[in-house]
């Protein structure tokens, strides 16, 4: 009983084949899932591929001036960083815990603040630039509470089972935000409420359902969700689990997904669309890794982007380096943490195609995602991590 649902390959394996199937109107729940997904994906990639245009708008001269101003402004705070336009260490800020937020505001050079505001605006994450900075601080504050003290899982529950469940959710897949929120809710639910192994798939689906209620405009029908689970559970069971999860989490559904940080950093660092897709791939792989739950979203995003740049060997010349310097001062956390995450992600990426849980690998091998998961550089990505950024 426990394994019927998610070991059954029947619910969606090949993501992109299914897209064509559902456009023929096979299952309303699936149409909802995939149309949402595609719309969001296209929008994000589109706005990100505007990067170069945006870059051109600011003349070279201006960039140099800005960077000059930046280096003057930051000379006192970051002596390490400026001398040759790049820094020794990728991590400039090490605020100890939450108090860091105030110092973050003080330490942040105005250029960087401006860049963050522009990025948020460009990415459509805010509706008024006047609130951008407050919102970024709020994102930082929220995400600090989004990591877990340890990787402990409830009894009878292993990293491998967790990965199978997450892999299944990636296949059911809604928009990226909803997916990240769903996995976060799942991680929290596993700590907070007692669930029998037989009900794990139900728990995962309910987390996805709740994430959709929080994030999406169109809701999947409960009957559609039951279909996706091959009718292993009844509607009644699903709704009972919904109440159980909401009470267990005390209705707290706040979360700042690492994806948002990734997109902001990539925008500040002027990364190419390919780097962004690669980073998104690596970041999504982190969902499958139980050991990643202890890291803050901002750290995961920083590490994914850092590794993506190295794998693609796309460092963008002196200008790109300068922009990267700026962006990397946002990865709050120590270099050790960053390298640890990069190691995990590099290993995951090197083996992704051989694993049973390969939904993410398949998803990111499509032309829409620039075939990033099949990039040859990923095979020996772990070798790259040792090299200083």
């Amino acid at each position, binding site marked *: 009983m426990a394994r019927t649902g998610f070991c059954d390959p029947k619910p969606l394996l090949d993501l992109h084949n299914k897209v064509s199937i559902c456009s023929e109107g096979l299952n309303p729940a699936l149409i909802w899932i995939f149309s949402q997904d595609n719309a969001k994906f296209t929008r994000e990639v589109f706005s990100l591929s505007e990067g170069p245009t945006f870059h051109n708008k600011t003349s070279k001269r201006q960039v140099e001036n800005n960077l000059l101003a930046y280096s003057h402004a930051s000379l006192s705070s970051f002596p390490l960083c400026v001398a040759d336009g790049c820094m020794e260490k990728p991590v400039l800020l090490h605020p100890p815990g939450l108090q860091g937020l105030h110092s973050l505001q003080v330490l942040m050079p105005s250029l960087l603040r401006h860049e963050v505001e522009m990025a948020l605006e460009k990415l459509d994450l805010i509706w008024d630039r006047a609130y951008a900075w407050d919102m970024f601080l709020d994102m930082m504050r929220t995400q600090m509470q989004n990591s877990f003290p340890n990787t402990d899982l409830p009894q009878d529950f292993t990293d491998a089972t967790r990965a199978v469940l997450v892999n299944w959710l990636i296949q059911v897949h809604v928009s990226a935000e909803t997916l990240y929120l769903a996995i976060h809710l799942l991680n929290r639910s596993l700590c907070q409420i007692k669930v029998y192994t037989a009900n794990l798939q139900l728990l995962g689906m309910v987390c996805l359902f709740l994430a959709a209620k929080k994030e999406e405009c169109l809701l999947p029908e409960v009957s559609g969700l039951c279909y996706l689970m091959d009718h292993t559970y009844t509607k009644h069971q699903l709704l009972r689990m919904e109440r159980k999860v909401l009470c267990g989490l005390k*209705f707290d559904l706040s979360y700042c997904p690492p994806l948002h940080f990734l997109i902001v950093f990539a925008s500040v660092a002027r990364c190419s669309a390919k780097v962004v897709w690669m980073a998104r791939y690596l970041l999504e792989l982190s969902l499958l890794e139980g050991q990643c739950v202890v890291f803050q979203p901002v750290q995961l995003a920083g590490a994914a982007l850092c590794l993506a740049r190295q794998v693609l060997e796309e460092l963008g010349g002196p200008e790109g380096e300068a922009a990267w310097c700026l962006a990397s001062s946002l990865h709050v956390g120590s270099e050790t943490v960053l390298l640890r995450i990069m190691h995990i992600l590099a290993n995951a990426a090197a083996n992704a195609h051989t694993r049973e849980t390969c939904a993410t690998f398949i998803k990111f091998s499509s032309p829409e995602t620039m075939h990033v998961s099949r990039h040859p550089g990923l095979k020996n990505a772990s070798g790259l991590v040792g090299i200083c950024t």
Partner: protein
Amino acid sequence: MAHGTSIQYERVAEIGGGAYGTVYKARDTESGRFVALKSVRVQTDQNGLPVSTVREVALLKRLEQFDHPNVVRLMDVCATQRSDQETKVTLVFEHVDQDLKTYLEKAPAPGLPPGHIRDLMRQLLCGLAFLHSNRVMHRDLKPENILVTSQGQVKLADFGLARIYSCHMALTPVVVTLWYRPPEVLLQSSYATPVDIWSTGCIFAEMFRRKPLFCGESEVDQLGKILEVIGLPPEEEWPTDVSLSRKNFPPLLPGPITDFVPEINEKGAQLLLKMLTFDPIKRISALNALEHPYFKDEEILTQTKS
């Protein structure tokens, strides 16, 4: 953790039938502290809890993380099924014994000293600015849901509840007071955070008067009473998409506000008028109100001390 509210919270007394249903004072058997239990019954269809309820309660939980001193603590939330069509969502708030209504009633004869009113107003606006900057409007601000602790700390309660309840309001035949409603709500035009500023203005005046400023008996009557004080606004300020025409009201001119709130000082009167501005767009915001010279005037404090 999983046990229901009925076990952890022991009902002690019924405290006021709030606009949205009965509110109970209860004892938290784990901590021994008193709490206020507010339950709402939401209709559940085949898709479980309504999206609006999930989002609104999640928003209240998010606000909770900021631990704002002028906002009542939300300690717990629980959902229990009552029938296939109905789920009860219970919100557990910290219990504060006294609201602003009783606080004003209990104040000895000449009323609250001006410095004290200013302090209460500052706290009230701080709480409101916090809610507004988080895109939450109260929508039903009145002395009954402004709590005042024994240390004189102001805490806003019942914010955001209006939205959770609104879909189900039609079912409960309750009279919601009109006295703190702004013109745009009375006219059923569109409205946003300025509604709370209007209510705050009414409450500001009430702190001096110790009785409500506008006690209308119907929507039209309420609007008439408002216009007697602030005057009939120019044609262009009257919302266009409303059924009640400006022509229904006599061409009144605004009288001096001190006729209605005699004890208020000059700067207080200025601020009050900015809050009781007919056009919601021109009405002062909570953040700007906190910057008003009324709060910078140190004379009041020294006067009250002497």
